[in-house]
C-alpha cells in the first residue's frame, strides 16, 4: 500500500533527517515508526503526504508515485492526525470532522451522515450532544477523539498519525489506545503511527520500524523485535525488561491450563487432601455444582479435617483473571496472590482455566532468544 524506496531527506542547511530508508507497508497493516526524538520518524511520516518535500528516493501510495500527484489531492486521500490535534477552535465538532469531506465537495447530507457515523464510532455519544460543541468545550481525551474522527473524515484508506495520544494523561491514553485498536479491527486502515513509546508501539503495531539518526535499524513484528533485537541499539531501546514487555503480546487464554483439576464444594476435606497428594499440589481451586469458582482449598487446611465439607473451609479469593487478559497483567496479579496461581474465569465467573508460574516460565523461555531460566525471575 505504501512503499518507501531509498528515501532521503536533507534539510536546507545540510541536516540529514532521513537517510536511505526503504519500507513496505501492506494494506491494512498497522506500522509503527518508533525511535528516540530526532531519529527522523516524524519526517519520514511527513514525507508520505509531502508536508516535507523529498530530497531523493521514491514513495508510492497505492502504486502511485506521490510526487506526481497533486499535493492537495494526495493529502485529501490520506487521513492525518497529530499530537497537538490542531482542531479548529472556531468550528464546531461537526464542522471540524467534515473538513476533508467539505474540501472534496461532498453534499451536506452525506457530510452530516458521515459525521454522525464517526462520532458514534469513536464513542462520542450521544452524538447530538457533541455535534455542535466547540473544541474548547471538550476534555483533552474527547478532543483527541475528534482529531482521530477528523482524520477518518472522508474515509481514507491510509491514516498517518503523529503521536496522536502523546499529550494526554496515561489512563486516558491507555483507553484511547484500546479503543483505537477496537476501531482498527473494524475499519482495517493502513496506519502509519509515529511514537517514541515502546509500550505503545508493542501494543498497537503489527510491525515496528525502529529508527535511529535517520536510518531504519529494524523492521519487524513486535515479538521479533523483542526476541531478536538486531543490534545493541535496539536491545537498549526495547529495554532490559523486554522479556516482560513481550508478555503483553500473549493473552491468558494461550497459556492457561484449560482443564485444571478442581474439587467440588460438596466433597470432603479428606478427598481434597487425597487429590492434592496424588497431584503433588499445595492447593486446589474449589467450584460449585455449576462450575463457578469459589476460592482455594489449601493443603494445610485440608489436613485438619476429615469428613468436613470443602465448602466450610474455602479461602475466598478475589484476584481473578480473564481469558483475554494480556500476560503482563496476569503476572502482576499472580505476584500479588499468595498461591502464585491465577484462576481464570469467564463472564459468569465459571472457572475456565488456571495460570501457574510453571506455564508462564515455559512461555518466557519460548519468547526469549537468550533463554531466561526460572531462577532468574523473582
Amino acid at each position: 500500500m505504501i512503499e518507501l524506496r531509498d528515501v532521503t531527506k536533507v534539510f536546507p542547511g545540510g541536516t540529514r533527517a532521513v537517510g536511505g530508508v526503504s519500507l513496505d507497508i501492506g494494506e491494512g497493516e498497522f506500522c509503527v515508526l518508533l525511535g528516540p526524538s530526532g531519529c527522523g520518524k516524524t519526517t519520514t511520516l511527513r514525507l508520505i503526504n509531502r508536508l516535507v518535500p523529498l530530497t531523493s528516493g521514491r514513495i508510492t501510495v497505492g502504486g502511485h508515485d506521490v510526487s506526481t500527484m497533486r499535493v492537495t489531492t494526495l493529502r485529501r486521500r490520506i487521513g492525518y492526525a497529530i499530537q497537538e490535534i490542531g482542531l479548529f477552535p472556531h468550528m464546531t465538532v461537526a464542522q471540524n470532522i467534515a473538513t476533508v469531506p467539505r474540501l472534496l465537495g461532498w453534499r451536506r447530507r452525506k457530510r452530516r451522515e458521515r459525521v454522525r457515523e464517526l462520532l458514534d464510532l469513536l464513542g462520542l455519544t450521544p452524538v447530538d450532544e457533541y455535534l455542535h460543541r466547540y473544541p474548547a468545550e471538550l476534555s483533552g481525551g474527547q478532543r483527541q477523539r475528534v482529531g482521530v474522527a477528523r482524520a477518518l473524515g472522508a474515509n481514507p484508506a491510509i491514516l498517518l498519525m503523529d503521536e496522536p495520544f502523546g499529550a494526554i494523561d496515561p489512563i486516558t491514553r491507555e483507553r484511547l489506545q484500546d479503543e483505537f485498536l477496537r476501531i482498527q479491527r473494524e475499519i482495517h486502515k493502513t496506519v502509519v503511527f509515529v511514537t517514541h513509546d515502546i509500550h505503545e508501539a508493542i501494543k498497537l503495531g503489527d510491525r515496528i520500524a525502529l529508527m535511529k539518526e535517520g536510518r531504519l535499524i529494524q523492521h519487524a513484528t513486535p515479538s521479533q523485535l523483542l526476541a531478536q533485537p538486531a543490534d545493541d541499539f535496539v536491545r537498549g531501546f526495547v529495554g532490559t525488561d523486554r522479556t516482560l514487555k513481550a508478555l503483553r503480546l500473549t493473552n491468558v487464554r494461550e497459556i492457561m491450563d484449560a482443564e485444571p483439576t478442581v474439587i467440588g464444594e460438596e466433597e470432603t476435606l479428606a478427598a481434597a487432601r487425597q487429590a492434592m497428594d496424588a497431584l503433588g499440589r499445595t492447593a486446589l481451586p474449589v467450584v460449585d455444582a455449576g462450575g463457578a469458582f469459589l476460592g482455594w482449598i489449601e493443603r494445610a487446611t485440608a489436613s485438619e479435617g476429615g469428613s468436613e465439607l470443602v465448602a466450610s473451609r474455602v479461602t475466598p479469593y478475589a484476584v481473578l483473571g480473564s481469558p483475554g487478559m494480556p500476560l503482563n497483567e496476569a503476572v502482576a496479579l499472580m505476584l500479588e496472590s499468595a498461591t502464585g496461581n491465577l484462576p481464570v474465569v469467564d463472564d459468569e465467573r465459571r472457572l475456565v482455566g488456571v495460570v501457574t508460574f510453571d506455564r508462564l516460565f515455559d512461555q518466557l523461555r519460548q519468547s526469549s532468544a537468550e533463554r531466561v531460566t526460572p531462577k532468574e525471575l523473582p
Partner: protein
Amino acid sequence: MLSTTWRYLTSHWVYVGQLTVEHIRIVLIANGLAVVIGLTLGIFISKRGREGLAELVLHVAGILLTIPSLALYGILMAVLKSLGLMSIGLVPVVVALTLYGLLPILRNTTTAIRGIDAAMIEAGRGMGMSERQILWRVRIPLAVPAIMAGLRQAIVMNVGIAAIGAYIGAGGLGQLIFRGIANTRADLVLAGAICVSLLAVGLDVALGVVERLSTPRGIRREGRA
C-alpha cells in the same frame, strides 16, 4: 463655566447634533477606507516569505502616526493641490485619518494572521487545504477579533484627531473648539471637547460590543458552556 457650557449645549443642541453627525461621518469614511486598505495590505504582507516587507510597511505606518496631525494636514493639502484635487475641507482630513487608522489595523491583522497556532495550520495543510483555503477558513476567521480590536483603536483615536480637521474646513465638532479659541469663549471650547470625548467613549463601548459579537463562538472566553 460649566454652567455656561451646559447652557450652550442645551440651547444649541440641533447645531451640536449636526456637528456630531459630521464628525462621525468623517471618522467612519476614513476608517472604512483604512479597513479596506489595512486588511488587503495586512493579508498581503502576512504571507510567508514577506516578513521583510511586513516590517517595512509597519515601520512606515508607525512613522506616519508620529507626524503631528496639523503638519500632516498641511502636507496633504500641498500634495492634493499639486494633484489637482480638493485641497481643503473633507478630502485632506479623510486622507490623513485613513493614514493614521492604518497602523493599528495593519499591525493587528498581521500579528493575528501570523500568530495562528502552527499545529492548526499544519493540520489544515495535512488534510489537503490549499494555502488560500487555510487563509480564508482558518487564519482570517481566527484573526477577526484582533482585527476588530485594531479597528476600534483606530476609530477612537481618530475621533480626537478629526477635531483638528475643522481647522482646514472639514467641519465636525472641532469647529466648536476653534470658534471658542478664536473668540476666547472657554465654554465653546469645553462644549466641543466634552462632545468629542463623549463620542470617543460612546464609540469605544459600542465597538466593544461589536468586537465581542464578531468573535467566533468557539473562541469567545465566555463560550465555554
